[in-house]
């Protein structure tokens, strides 16, 4: 157990709170940067997918985890980002144009949702975002002159300074750098007044108003930032997929994103990464397990969604605060080893809190 001796308020503002943090996060970044030297192409591809999903999850976390606005439509922002990026590359622009445009268009999409959505709450918002995603998918299917419609669209490789990124490790590093930058921006928001206002809106909208926070503005801000980050993730997803059809970005993808951040732990940045790694490992694990099982079980269509569904339901029913909080429990068990009390994290008995009264 580490006891921090604080001598300056500035210490609370630092991202790394003590030398242990600096060491471990530094090591993590080094390992991630060195990964292409160790892993072969297939695993680098898998790792790239995990990073892309982490980026999308980071976007969703901003709006759902920190601002408390459940979005069931984030696949729409992935779609907008992916197609925008692919279209601009196809017109011969470099990634320096295509990526910001992907983020920008996605942001505009986010703004379009956010302005009406900021007035809604809870379930209405969830449905409105779900429906938004369905409409966007439908529109992408109909705009065949731009998106290739349901026949699909090829994606060119990223281009920087006239150099084309063909290698899988190059794409991996590109994604990693953008992801680290995006994470830093989110962390900065969280430690500044905007982030606190987001949490205030999430936990009690009335009292946030009484303290001078404008919940509409905060929600619109959260949606816009969220859409921009998710749009960027979509742009990279396009490079990972190489071929886009609107069906990729269906409801299931939105649910998968939500599942990811819930599994990881809502309301924490750690949760995003825990969730992304977990989903990545799970997908690889299921496909390995499928081969290992007798084909009468493993070969059944629909085994993957079944496993996903079961995990989703059990996490919500048994550990609704996600894997990150399980990790916190294990960590404090070890820190306090002989004197850990089982009761410290006991779930309190809860009654139905009505949300009908807003």
């Amino acid at each position: 157990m580490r006891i921090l001796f604080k001598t300056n308020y500035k210490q609370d503002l630092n991202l790394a709170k003590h030398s242990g943090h600096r060491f471990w996060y530094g090591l993590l970044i080094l390992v991630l940067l060195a990964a292409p030297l160790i892993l072969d192409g297939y695993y680098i591809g898998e790792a790239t997918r995990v990073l892309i999903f982490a980026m999308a999850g980071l976007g969703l976390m901003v709006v759902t985890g920190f601002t408390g606005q459940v979005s069931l439509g984030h696949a729409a922002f992935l779609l907008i980002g992916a197609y925008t990026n692919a279209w601009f590359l196809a017109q011969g622009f470099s990634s320096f144009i295509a990526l910001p445009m992907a983020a920008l268009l996605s942001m505009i999409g986010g703004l379009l949702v956010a302005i009406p959505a900021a007035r809604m709450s809870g379930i209405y918002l969830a449905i409105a975002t779900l429906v938004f995603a369905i409409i966007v998918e439908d529109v992408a299917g109909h705009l065949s002159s731009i998106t290739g419609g349901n026949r699909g669209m090829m994606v060119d490789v990223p281009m920087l300074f006239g150099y084309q990124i063909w290698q899988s490790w190059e794409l991996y590093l590109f994604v990693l750098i953008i992801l680290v930058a995006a994470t830093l921006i989110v962390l900065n928001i969280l430690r500044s007044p905007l982030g606190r206002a987001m949490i205030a809106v999430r936990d009690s909208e009335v009292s946030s108003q009484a303290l001078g926070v404008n919940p509409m503005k905060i929600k619109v801000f959260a949606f816009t930032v969220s859409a921009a980050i998710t749009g960027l993730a979509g742009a990279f997803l396009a490079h990972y997929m190489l071929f886009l059809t609107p069906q990729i970005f269906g409801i299931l993808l939105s649910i998968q994103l939500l599942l990811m951040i819930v599994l990881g732990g809502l309301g924490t940045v750690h949760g995003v990464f825990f969730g992304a790694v977990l989903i990545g490992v799970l997908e690889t694990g299921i496909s390995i397990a499928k081969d290992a099982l007798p084909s009468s079980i493993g070969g059944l269509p629909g085994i993957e969604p079944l496993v996903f569904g079961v995990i989703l339901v059990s996490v919500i029913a048994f550990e609704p605060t996600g894997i990150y909080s399980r990790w916190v429990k294990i960590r404090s068990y070890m820190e306090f080893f002989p004197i850990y009390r089982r009761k410290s994290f006991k779930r309190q008995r809860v009654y139905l809190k009505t949300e009908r009264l807003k």
Partner: protein
Amino acid sequence: MNEFLQLLIVGISQGCIYGLMALGFVMIYKATEMVNFAQGDMMMLGSFVAWTLIMDLGMPFWLGVPATLIVMALFGALVDILIVRRVIGQPQFAVIILTLGLGIIFRAAAGMIWGHVPLTIDSPISGFSSFYGIVIGNERLVIIAVTALLITILWTYFRYSKWGVAMKATSQNQLAAYYSGIPVRVIISAVWAVAAAISALAGILLAPITLIEPMNGLLGIKAFAAAVIGGFGSMPGAILGGLIVGIIEPFAAAYIPAVKGSMVYIVMLIVLALRPQGLFAQIHKKKL
């Protein structure tokens, strides 16, 4: 004019199905404030159970239907007792994700048990009726009649029966209902049972029109739009919303085919943008 009438009746019958499903949502929402995203999948399961009982086990149709309703009612209660009850008091999104997960499981399980090849039930109702120069499948008329009957029964039930009143009380204030000696847990399970049975009925009614397959579960989203248009807490609103959604569909397909897939959702978004709480709002100011 004939085409208009024809589309209208097709729309109304389709709308009755959505309305029934939406009724299931709204009942559960009113009683527990949970939104059951798996409602469409319960309808889908209902039609599969009916198929097994009638086509596979050879039950007579008129016996198979009530048997299906009972099986699905038990199933609904079990879902509540085993799983959903655990998340009472958790935030709304936990419930949303939980029921979305249940929906995924139901769909995947249905695909494994019954396969993905569409099935049909031999229905004793067939043929067409024609009047005022339009021709309408009898099964569609049956849908409308059964829905009207069911609504009347439910309305009487909630108005006059002891259990119905207890359900209404529970939906108003759980704690107060509990203090008044209403067995809140039993009531909630009963609501889930009734909602599942209503959805199963919708599934059976729908079976002669569309084939039975796991993806039918996704029709729930349209029923969802119906419930939202009607204002989530209102049972007449749910039926009305269902009818609106049902009527929009064939007309959009006939006159503006480009948006036939999303017209319903566009209308829903417009309703939400104008009235963020739906047409029959149930949300009141929170007491501070």
